[in-house]
């Protein structure tokens, strides 16, 4: 008799508010296996994982753990069944300490009471298991660096002693050294017979760590293969559905690189320093760097959210003082923020209300002509919606992002800063955005593009400015290799030293 796999999910289907996110997805994980789950943004990876973790319940399909059918109505049930999860979004409470966060929901008890000493000791154990130093169990989570927060999340999942550990992009905010730690740890878990479900966009990690790969695309299972049976190129093709070279549209004919529109000299504040930046009309400048390297801070400084306290900004050759978003908008700057739900959209308002928000809020850019342009703008972005009256929270992520872009384009800016514009949106929408970015350049806008997926910066930007630790580490032409960018981004090479 063959032992049943540790986990067997069959025919899983899930829809949010009528929009299908997963359909007919199968996933099996053997004991001691490290199983990769890959797919484009919005493919449904996190959703599948959340169904497994009891956060969402599936609309269709069955889940078997250890050969027994299970159905989790609450995350607690999943935990009890031996499934531990590290979620994609941070899942920590800033006011609680590391050890409280690690044990949240499962506090050790002695005689019915929370045993804080045991809690601290166990946390220290898990952390040292992870090989982490300099992370005090009694530090408040809110005071930690992003990397330490991520480690706390991992510790939280590990401490559950689960049979199946699910990790959704655990390395997204980790530096190389910390990623190494995680590798070693996963190796040790595998030896103990623990299975790992590993979600990541980093192809290299997948080939380094995983035994098998399940590929999702648009909520459907594309294939499930052994890592040894597939090459990275084939995997990417399977994920995207076409060859990657085709991924980025070419520079549009007639795009002319004109005068410098945005010029920053010696810009700095508490988080960034020594920023010299030129963006010309018709030019796309990419900002690359690791998580936390200060890309968003540059965007925020240019847009006046956290203004530069040193240095100068010039727009079209004239010095300007940008002290807040209203000043920036008045000066013709637009910022597509990195977190569209928290910063970009009023989710319960209609498409129309969101699209005209910038015009409504700023007398200086408000005009009847611009208002009249909005419907055309939305349709030129191929917005899919049930009409202008629909609340944007019911739109898919890509369409939400189109609304954000539309609201900024409505104001006809001269400079547009795009911070992670493709985060969490599906392939088709991504592509549409790529060509939108191209056409913005063709129309003579100065575009500053921030994207975590290096490939996007490389594929779209005319020039790439690489940041390291809050300062500019170097500048590369568009189409530079990933290695070159990473060399600057990780600080292995710096502008002063020149190319190695």
């Amino acid at each position, binding site marked *: 008799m063959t032992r049943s796999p540790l986990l067997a999910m069959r025919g899983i289907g899930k829809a949010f508010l009528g929009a299908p996110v997963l359909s007919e997805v199968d996933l099996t994980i053997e004991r001691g296996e490290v199983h990769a789950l890959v797919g484009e943004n919005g493919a449904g990876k996190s959703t599948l994982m959340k169904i497994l973790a009891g956060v969402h319940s599936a609309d269709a399909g069955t889940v078997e753990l250890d050969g027994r059918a299970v159905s989790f109505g609450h995350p607690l049930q999943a935990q009890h069944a031996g499934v531990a999860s590290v979620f994609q979004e941070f899942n920590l409470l800033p006011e609680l300490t590391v050890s409280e966060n690690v044990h949240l929901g499962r506090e050790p008890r002695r005689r019915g009471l929370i045993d804080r000493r045991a809690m601290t000791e166990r946390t220290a154990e898990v952390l040292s298991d992870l090989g982490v130093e300099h992370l005090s169990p009694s530090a408040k989570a809110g005071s930690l660096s992003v990397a330490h927060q991520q480690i706390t999340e991992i510790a939280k999942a590990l401490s559950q002693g689960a049979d199946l550990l699910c990790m959704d992009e655990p390395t997204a905010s980790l530096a190389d050294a910390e990623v190494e730690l995680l590798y070693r740890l996963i190796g040790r878990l595998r030896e103990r017979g623990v299975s790992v479900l590993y979600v990541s966009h980093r192809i290299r990690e997948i080939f380094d760590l995983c035994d098998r790969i399940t590929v999702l695309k648009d909520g459907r299972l594309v294939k499930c293969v052994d890592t040894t049976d597939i090459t990275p190129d084939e995997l990417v093709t399977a994920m995207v559905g076409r060859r990657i070279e085709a991924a980025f549209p070419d520079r549009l004919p007639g795009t002319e690189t004109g005068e410098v529109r945005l010029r920053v000299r010696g810009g700095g504040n508490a988080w960034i320093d020594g920023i010299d930046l030129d963006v010309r009309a018709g030019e796309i400048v990419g900002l690359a760097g690791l998580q936390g390297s200060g890309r968003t801070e540059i965007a925020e400084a240019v847009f006046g959210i956290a203004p530069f306290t040193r240095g100068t900004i010039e727009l079209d050759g004239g010095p300007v003082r940008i002290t807040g978003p209203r000043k920036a908008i008045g000066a013709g700057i637009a910022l597509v923020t990195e977190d569209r739900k*928290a910063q970009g959209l*009023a*989710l319960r308002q209609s498409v129309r209300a969101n699209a005209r928000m910038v015009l409504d809020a700023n007398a200086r850019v408000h005009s009847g002509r611009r208002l009249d342009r909005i419907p055309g703008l939305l*349709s030129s972005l191929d917005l899919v919606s*049930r009409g*202008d009256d629909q609340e944007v929270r019911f739109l898919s992520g890509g369409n939400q992002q189109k609304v954000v872009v539309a609201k900024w384009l409505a104001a006809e800016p001269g400079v547009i800063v795009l911070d992670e514009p493709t985060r969490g949106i599906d392939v088709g929408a991504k592509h549409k955005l790529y060509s939108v970015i191209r056409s913005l350049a063709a129309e003579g806008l100065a575009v500053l593009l921030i994207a975590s997926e290096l490939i996007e910066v490389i594929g779209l930007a005319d020039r790439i400015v690489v940041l390291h630790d809050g300062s500019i580490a170097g500048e590369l032409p568009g189409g530079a290799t990933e290695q070159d960018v990473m060399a600057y981004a990780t600080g292995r090479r710096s502008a002063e030293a020149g190319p190695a």
Partner: protein
Amino acid sequence: MTRLRALAGRLTNPTGTVFILLALILAGIFVKNADFFAGPSLMAFLKQAAPLVILAAGQYFVIVSGNFDLSVGALVGAQVVIAARLIDGEESRTLPVLAVMLFFGLAVGLVNGLITTALKVQSFITTLGMLLVLYGAIRLWTGGAPTGSLSEAFRTPGRLGIEGVPILGQLPWALLIMLALGAGAIVLMRTRFGRILMASGDNDRAAALSGARVDTVRTAAFVLSGLSATVAGVLIGGFAGVSAQVGEGLEFTVITAVVLGGVVLGGGRGTVIAAMAGALAIEALFTLFNQLALPATLRPTVQGAIIIAAVAYAARQRTRPAATPATVTPS
């Protein structure tokens, strides 16, 4: 057919709940006493409901922008007392005193708004404090009980109307003021101000990053609430004269009315017309209680149960998705 469906859809959405409720209550009144719908008695009902409707509109602005105004009841009371003391029966003082009252209402709203936005004190606390301050200060000023008296002119808007209108009898000024202000509120919500107010309540960060002056519009909402309390004070004082208890507890009634109208505490959702309908529903409910001769002591119980049920029903509607197919925006 599709129109019917659209109507049905609108009625089952959380904002529509209040219209169903209002219809049910009115039907109840009709069954009990069809005469209620005769012109004069209907006018009397609307005349007396007008202040709450106007207050609801004012409170709506504050709630939709993400705040609370607990000080309106005390402000209504203060305004009536101020009017009585300053007018002191002199007809000629009516207009100047009305100007003083408007200024006072504006100032109270402004202070509420500034404390909430600039000092970042939660509006619940700001307006609770303002309630205490107004309550105490006004009594301190008048030595505990209202003094003076209102002029005839002052009492006109709240008490009188256009006489001799066919069918209706008297067309109350209060009703006309209510309609005008209601229409004004609806129009205001369609202006840039209204849109920004709504967006600020929904997501103040997104609104601010779009260049909205979030603090300014929120403060303006408090000012509108202060002004609506002033108008309500003029109407209530006009309707019934001065008494020591004017306005007491109105804040809870009006917040309930607004929430009954499907406006969500926390901001960003609901329409001003539904909020005003919520106020009418509450007033109609009180009338129904009266028509049913429900023992006076029992009324709060029924009222509480109905409010919880209605808000729970609306909450249920809110989590249910509308199932119409998506289309590409036609170009």
